[in-house]
């Protein structure tokens, strides 16, 4: 009897572990916010088909995934809240208020989210498990891009109207550096070693490389295309290249990380805005706002392999992988 009970308990535990692992398994789904569709399109990363469209509220923009993969967060700008989506059930499971006009955000490895509140000129820090505000950080006018260093020790916030990149220490939330960059800085991304941060400046059409420790600009380059208004930026898997969404140029620019030399440009849809790179680095998704589509890029070939119609004016994209 004792042995049977022990086996039974072990089986129960195994079942729980199985259920847990399957519940939290990466689905390969791609979550796309539709700024004027008030929804999130969910794509199957294998078939490139839309498998669900989830109503989330007015003007969804930033999107991110919890470190354990159990939740997808969406900044719903006009409703001033974060909608939390279950990536398995594909439904909104809760919402929480997060200050005025949340736009972009980044998820810290500890699970907290750092949000830019555009109209309040602050970045705010929330614990998404209970929706509690942990801290606010005063930044410049119209904060937008938020990036967290892979080592979790810094957060970079761009303020669009004051042309600044703020490099902020975590957890003290003291500003380490205020770096004057080109006009209308939009997005930022850290190198994998957390020592370098890259910024796009939309109006000046520049990509800027900054040393995180010193706060000094080490390099910058103009995209050299009057229509190129760079927005999102990502570093590729081995750190050798940067991908830049070129806005109204309708191109993804591929830059050499060392010299910021433009290596290639890939034509995508109109007003390309958001970017997400698969964990293995082989697939890049872009949101092409005016064409209401997502482009899928094979990063090995640096070619578009598929385009997927989504909702109205797609803005942000995140991969559940």
């Amino acid at each position, binding site marked *: 009897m004792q042995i049977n009970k022990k086996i039974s308990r072990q089986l129960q535990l195994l079942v729980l572990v199985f259920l847990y692992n399957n519940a939290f398994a990466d689905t390969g789904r791609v979550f796309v916010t539709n700024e004027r569709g008030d929804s999130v399109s969910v794509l199957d990363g294998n078939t490139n088909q839309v498998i669900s469209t989830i109503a989330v509220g007015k003007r969804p923009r930033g999107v991110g995934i919890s470190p354990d993969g159990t939740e997808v967060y969406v900044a719903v700008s006009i409703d001033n809240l974060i909608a939390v989506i279950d990536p398995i059930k594909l439904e909104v499971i809760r919402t929480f208020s997060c200050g005025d006009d949340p736009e972009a955000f980044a998820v810290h490895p500890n699970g907290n989210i750092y949000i830019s509140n*555009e*109209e309040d*000129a602050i970045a705010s820090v929330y614990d998404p498990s209970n929706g509690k505000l942990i801290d606010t950080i005063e930044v*410049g*006018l*119209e904060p937008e891009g938020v990036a967290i260093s892979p080592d979790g020790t810094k957060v970079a916030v761009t303020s*669009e*109207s*004051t*042309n*600044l990149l*703020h490099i902020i220490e975590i957890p003290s939330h003291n*500003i380490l550096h*205020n770096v*004057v960059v*080109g*006009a*209308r800085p939009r997005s930022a991304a850290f190198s994998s070693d957390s020592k370098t941060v890259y910024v796009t400046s939309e*109006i*000046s*059409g520049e990509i800027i490389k900054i040393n995180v420790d010193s706060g000094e600009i080490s390099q910058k380059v103009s995209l050299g295309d009057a229509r190129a*208004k760079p927005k999102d930026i990502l570093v590729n898997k081995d750190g050798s290249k940067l991908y830049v969404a070129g806005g109204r140029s309708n191109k993804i620019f591929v830059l050499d990380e060392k010299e910021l030399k433009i290596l290639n440009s890939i034509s995508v849809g109109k007003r390309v805005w958001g970017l997400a790179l698969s964990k293995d680095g082989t697939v890049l998704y872009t949101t092409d706002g005016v064409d209401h589509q997502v482009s899928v890029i094979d990063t090995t070939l640096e070619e578009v392999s598929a385009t997927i119609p989504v909702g109205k004016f797609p803005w942000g994209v995140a991969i559940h992988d």
Partner: protein
Amino acid sequence: MVLTTGTALGKELHIVFDGSKETDAWLGLQQGIEEANTQGKFLNLKYIIANFNDLASIQDKASTIIVSARSALRNSELATKYPNIPVFAVLPSSSAQSRPCAKNILYISPSSQIMNKVTTLWRAEHPNGNGRAQLWHYTFRKYAAAQLNKRFKKTAEKPMSDDSWSAWAAVKLFSDVAAKNANPSTQLLNPKETSTLAFDGQKGVDLNFNSELELLQPLLIVDNGIIVSEISIEKINTLRDANSNCRTLAAKN
């Protein structure tokens, strides 16, 4: 007013306003200064409104501008009296020909003549329309214009007009240059600098001054209170007078 420069609180930069404080330009200037100081607190810079009596005591002329909401004649007098201080002319002159050609007058607004030409061109293409060219409109939303309009209305308690945008832009331009240069006024007197500023006037493109020191910018066509079109810099440039006095002078220089 006691003026000090380079205090422990940060470097002070001075803005002299020449115009009535009952105008939209004054409200725009105040908005610009508030925003400049928001930026300045991160860079240890402080923007202060000064008056003409203060100018003699300001040591750091390289960190001073005049924003003029006065006539072309007055702008000319200011430019002559203060040759090393940039004078931002924020009201439209009647025409490019009527403008004084001085190396230190920076024109934020196109002339009324250009505005009228743009209006005429648009109406020719839209015979049933009654649109008119404007620098700005309080319903403008694109390119984060909505945020600027909202900030202005919150502070000034009225919608942002052409004149308020123009004065706001003068201060924003100054603060953008000051954020990158120790001697911003000197930079603003250098045509090589002013032609490559890539200024963000919240109009969606980078704005620069031409050789006549006019800020090139897209214009809005507003018909019955609604923005119906945006006219590009390139299209506006085709309407310019090739023989304007200042252009001839700039070419000679």
